């Protein structure tokens, strides 16, 4: 599903943010990207949805080389990738329903069809009763669930989550992670960037560790969890 070959990302005048990244993600996999702040986790995710361009190397997403993608083709790539951010990025003046429907509006889906999909998605994230609420009236966990619903409403094949639980307390963190796990079980490839080691131990998924822009380890869930325990 995702292949990265000798990928580098550097900004002029600074040391590389990512160096010689080689990563292969199979369809339907769940992967944690971990490492300290500044390790390059967010940049790596940005490269995958063309929020940034790689300085060097090749990146294939769904068989398409996005290192050489035309600007005009980026929107069509993004329609297959859902993105979840730590800071939610919800529109405060729109209702929960409208925020989730935003993705379908962009794709020109008829309103009736969009409404039906939105309700199905809100049901999945357990927020159907909050459809007409405004985001600022929701808890952090609820807001993050709205973001996940927005990211999934278009049935993307890949879900990228950048510190999705970074602003949440432990109980809400588990709630969100359970939801992402459930999404993965339904067939979506999920990449979660986190520096929360308790998550790695609890969910035991393949874990790719970044340090100073390099991949320093790539272990299966059990091995990673065992190392965390040591």
């Amino acid at each position, binding site marked *: 599903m995702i292949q990265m070959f000798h990928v580098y990302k550097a900004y002029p005048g600074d040391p590389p943010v990512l160096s010689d990244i080689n990563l292969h993600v199979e369809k339907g996999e769940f992967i944690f990207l971990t490492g300290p702040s500044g390790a390059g986790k967010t940049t790596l995710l940005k490269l995958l949805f063309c929020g940034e361009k790689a300085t060097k190397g090749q990146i294939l997403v769904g068989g398409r080389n996005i290192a050489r993608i035309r600007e*005009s083709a980026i*929107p069509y790539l993004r329609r297959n990738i859902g993105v979840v951010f730590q800071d939610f990025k919800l529109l405060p003046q729109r209702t929960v329903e409208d925020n989730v429907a935003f993705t379908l509006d*962009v794709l020109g889906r008829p309103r009736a069809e969009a409404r039906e999909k939105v309700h199905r998605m809100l049901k999945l994230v357990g927020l159907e009763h909050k459809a007409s609420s405004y985001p600022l009236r929701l808890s952090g966990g609820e807001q993050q669930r709205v973001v996940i619903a927005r990211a999934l409403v278009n049935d993307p094949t890949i879900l990228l989550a950048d510190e999705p639980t970074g602003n949440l307390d432990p109980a809400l963190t588990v709630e969100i992670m359970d939801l992402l796990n459930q999404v993965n079980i339904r067939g979506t490839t999920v990449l979660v960037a986190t520096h929360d080691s308790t998550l790695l131990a609890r969910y035991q998924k393949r874990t790719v560790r970044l340090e100073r822009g390099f991949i320093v380890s790539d272990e299966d869930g059990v091995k990673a969890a065992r190392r965390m325990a040591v």
Partner: protein
Amino acid sequence: MSALAKVSYFWRSATGGLRHSPFVHFIAITTIAIALFAAGLARTAGSALDGLLASLGGEVEVTVYLAPELAEDQVEALRTQLETASGGRAVLVKPEEALERLARELGDLGDALSQLPENPLPPSLELSVAPERRTPELLERLSLQLRALPGVTGVDYGREAVERLTAIARALQFGGLVAFAVVLFATIIIVSATLQLAIYARREEIEIQKLVGATDRFVKAPFLIEGLLQGLLGAAVALGGLWAFGQLVGPTLTSLFSFLLGPTSSEPMVRAGLALELIFAGGLLGLVGSFIAVGRFLRV
């Protein structure tokens, strides 16, 4: 993918944008309205001036002096020739009629003419030329053509007056065009700046649109519609203003200038043609302004 759903989304987004930043859009609409109101006034004044020039131009006649020895049938033949060449009407003025007219024009001094041993004035044909042929160039060409006819001894068409009137009309047209271009430019800049503010206010929404896969065209379309709506609303306000101006000030102006403007001044301030022109201009102003704004500011 439904085109109807997209159009419906663009419309909701554009009208939502107008509601989202009402003050910013109020400024843009007011600017367009003022510019179009001024343009509408200038247009109305311009057409009144055209009417004035046409009526003054109508008084310019070509006088063709004839040889005194011409027989009546020869004069008649010449008259027909003149009318064919000019597309206007020619009236014969006999020498005694011309002398009477001169005496009348001279007033008290006119009596002196009766002392003349014989009438020195030749017969003439007074030719009124069709309005479209009253330019200095065409009148000069007609004059040369008429001068060459046998039996014609001279042609006079008030060359200086025609040239002066034409120069005034051209200067006014040019001045109007320059002023209109300046107002147009300033309006586009202001509309574009206000839309940039509106775009800035919705940067978060744009960022999310891009993240969920919106194309550049999709992001830009609502802003272009917003600009178009601004322009149309500005035009509507300007037309309302012109109508009110016509109702309140029109009668006073008509009575003040009726001696100059004649029947044209009684025309309504907002004619259908002018309304269409202003609506078109408003829409175009809004579109161009928003096009510049999205081009400069929305590099998404």
